[in-house]
């Protein structure tokens, strides 16, 4: 059993748990986007940042991938954490301005505009990779994956063509935190074809 503090409250955890899991067990809310209980965590969106303090020293870590340790002091709502969250939200608002889900969550944390330039006003995807993880870990396929690299990275099927590997289970649509997969799935599974066989004469 590991004992440590979250927001000055003593909590207990088993080795192997993450800070986020422990916080959720104690019903302490930490916002997340790229995290889903069904798949492994990747720490991509940086929204779940918490502050670790040790005297005058402190650092920020992503709680979804940070394993618990004896005696650490975790703070989830310090000024530094809130500041990082605001920055992340501003960047997300610039990356995927068309996503209603992101706007809602940002507004909940008091961020309603961004100072970054918006490249594509119709973009909904924040490239967190939750859908590709779902496809791989839940379904057992890799119908979708990250295409391209760096700032050009996006989600799609190989060669941006509908793929036969896709079984059209819709896990990616259900798991998508921004609603971006809704408009993308048809390009992966192929538009459902309704072929009515002509009447026999």
């Amino acid at each position, binding site marked *: 059993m590991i004992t440590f503090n979250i927001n000055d409250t003593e909590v207990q*955890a*088993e080795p*192997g*748990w*993450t800070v986020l*899991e*422990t916080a*959720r*067990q*104690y*019903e302490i*809310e930490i916002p997340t986007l790229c995290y*889903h*209980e*069904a798949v492994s965590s990747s720490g991509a969106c940086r929204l779940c940042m918490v502050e670790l303090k040790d005297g005058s020293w402190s650092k920020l870590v992503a709680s979804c991938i940070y394993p618990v340790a004896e005696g650490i002091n975790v703070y989830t709502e310090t000024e530094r954490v809130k500041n990082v969250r605001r920055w992340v939200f501003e960047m997300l608002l610039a990356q995927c301005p068309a996503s209603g889900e992101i706007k809602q969550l940002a507004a909940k944390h008091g961020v309603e505009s961004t100072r970054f330039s918006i490249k594509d006003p119709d973009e909904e995807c924040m490239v967190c990779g939750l859908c590709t993880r*779902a496809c791989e*870990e*839940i*379904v*057992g*396929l890799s119908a979708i994956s990250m295409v391209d690299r760096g700032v050009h990275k996006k989600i799609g099927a190989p060669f941006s063509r509908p793929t036969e590997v896709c*079984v*059209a*289970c*819709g*896990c990616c*649509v*259900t*798991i998508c935190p921004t*609603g971006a997969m*809704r408009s993308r*799935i*048809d390009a992966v599974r192929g538009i*459902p*074809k*309704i*072929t*009515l*066989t002509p*009447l*026999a004469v």
Partner: protein
Amino acid sequence: MNDKPKIGVFICKCGQKIDPFIDLSAMKVTVSKTDDVTCCEVLPYPCLEPGMTEIIKSIKEKEVNRLVVAGCESRLMLKKFEKRLESEGLKKGQIDVVNLRGHVAAVSDLSPKEKAEKGARLVNASIAEMRALHPSIQQNVHIEHPPMILGGGVASFTAAQELARKGIECYLSIPETDPDIILQQLYQKYLGERSNYPRLKKIIEDVLKNDRVTILPETEIVSLSGITGDYSAALTVPGELNRKRYQVGTIIACLDGELTAPGPEFGYDGKTVLCQTDLENIIYNAVIPSGQTVFWINDYETGQEEYARLSTRSAWTMSRHILENSKKSQVIILYNQKMSLPLTASERSLSRKLGIIWVPYDKAVQPVIQLGFVSFGGVNDHLEHEIPWDRIVLSPIRKIGGNSMQTAKILGIIHEESEFLGVHHAKVRPEMVGREESYLAGSARYSCDLNEALNQGKQAGKKNAEMYQKSAENTLFAPRVVCIVDTTKCVGCGQCQEICDCGGIGIAEGLGGGIPRVVDPMVCTGGGTCAAACPYQALTLQNNTNDQREARVGELAKQLKNNEFVAFACSWAGLPAADNAGNRGLNYNPDIHIIGIPCVGQIDPSVMARAFVDGAPGLLLVGCDPENCHHSFGVDHAWSRVNILKKLFTLCGFDRRRITMAHADLNHPEDFVKTVESFSKMLKALGPIEKTPDNQKKLESIYKLVKTNSRVRLLLSSGLRRPWEATYRGDQRYALEYDRSDFMDALKEELLKVRLEGIFREESRPFDLDEIISKVVDDQNRIINQLSELVAEGAIERTYKQGKPFYLSAN
């Protein structure tokens, strides 16, 4: 494992997403009172490590052997629970996830108390299903016999080579064993591949002298029976009429497609207007043709545009061969502007050096071959141009070919004649099928070049070797949800085999009538329409049985009030649409109580009837769009089953709209909401079915009829759509003809019989005719006939008092 069920229920708070909307403590109180519930806990997150620790604790301390989690989407979460808890003894099928968040919490304006009631109803239904579960033992598959490579395709050699390399002995059935003759004939199957022949020859020679490969020269497959691990293949014996049987573990089918010349509509004459196959034969065996050769890549015009690139590749290798060997020849390649050239940069530069002229043509204007000239539309100027020719070379038509088709039919990997062999009809998660694919390699699958075919052969060999290795290590398991046949009940009518789309059902041994069917657990996808179609209920879907589903729907129906109804939603369309509606927070009528199932085709008519017997006023089945079913025809089969219930409802005087099919798409939850609204509105107008003893008896007769009457069940299953049928007799389009056939009469007859039997079962006193007629409102003559039949069968006795007939139960 088959001990008394001890069910653990874990209710998730899901942060702020479930807890404030549903009164979870009230729900916990209700659920805890249910029988067989050993523990019921409300946890912040059962799906996270802290929650899992609690669950494992309950498994260890309270010996929980069934688990129900009330949380979110089972499509996403179930896998995690299955993976995590497998080592604790909870196997697939023993865990169920009820979507409280998406189907209850987020989608209506009910008060937390009312939502708690609805949630408890759904959870109790799931508990009832768990109670009826008899978990199967993990089925270990052993493969002891060697694999056999069939079909005579060129991919056979790489498959055999790969198997031999992995140390596995195999049979190889091929029509020809001389490498030179094999290569000589290869141009009829794969074009422009001469440069690869030396490499291929080495592979062939290597395989032919390999000790691990038993060559069966000049043989062909005649019949195949059995299942993965234990096939019996009958092969011809060269020069004899007898056939020889081989015991085989697995089959690799290597089938090559066929290349044929296009028809006369393109001017093909085999002399100056040639096909690529003709030219290949000429240039490699005789002289290099001089003069102007024009390749017309006409795959777009023959309707095979996906193979234009393949034809272009072979045209390119042939032109290269011509120009490298003859100074006096010119080559022009004419191609549709829609195609991008499949050449690498170095090939382009070589092409320029050789002087090959590539001419794209306007896609809107089809080139016309005239005497000495071919005319086409220019891409830029849209002007008609003409090229003179000495020889025109057309692309071949690609298709499966007779021999390959024949073999495919024997192996059961084809249902209908089409251009190419598909791999699998069903579109399901890989974990649902034991074998990854049907080990099919070669250009009969889809037209490809030699390299691709050889690679496919190698892959098939590799996958097969993996299977043998797993079998040797005792780690080759069949999926948990597959069909099994009760051979004592099976009469060998073959309905299941005919409607099975995955090819998993076969005959145990030999031909003839009355032989029980067997299911290959490594091929079965668990679609389950076969089990629902069996007239004698000899088939069951393991860990997902009919009894389980009846228990669940019955339990749910018993708890419903007023206009609340049950809906079956398939996990490919209805369920994701409902999940996504919940995710988006769309509101719909809370009367609906959703039960998720793998495919609506699994729903036996008895399950549908059971919902009404136990008090549901309506039943909705939400499946995929027609022609889009993941188990091929599950949705069509469900349609036929719904319709038999509709007919029975009409015969019994109930409103037939109470049971209705609907179609959904996972990406259009707003349409799902409309479906729910429309059905609940209609049901509200109809009101619940009046709970009179008469009505209840009628419903029970319907239930008994569709569950146990083999005649009706056989008539129903013989009307189901077959995989090779584009349309079928039970299809919406032929519904009228079907209804007007004897089917309706049979239905009326059997229903009356069941109802009469019910009367005599209930009371053992004699009834006179008038009383019977007043109890069963039906045509008098029909009743008299039916009574006589029952007397003849010995089910009832007829006595006379004062000349008036009385009937009473024979027992």
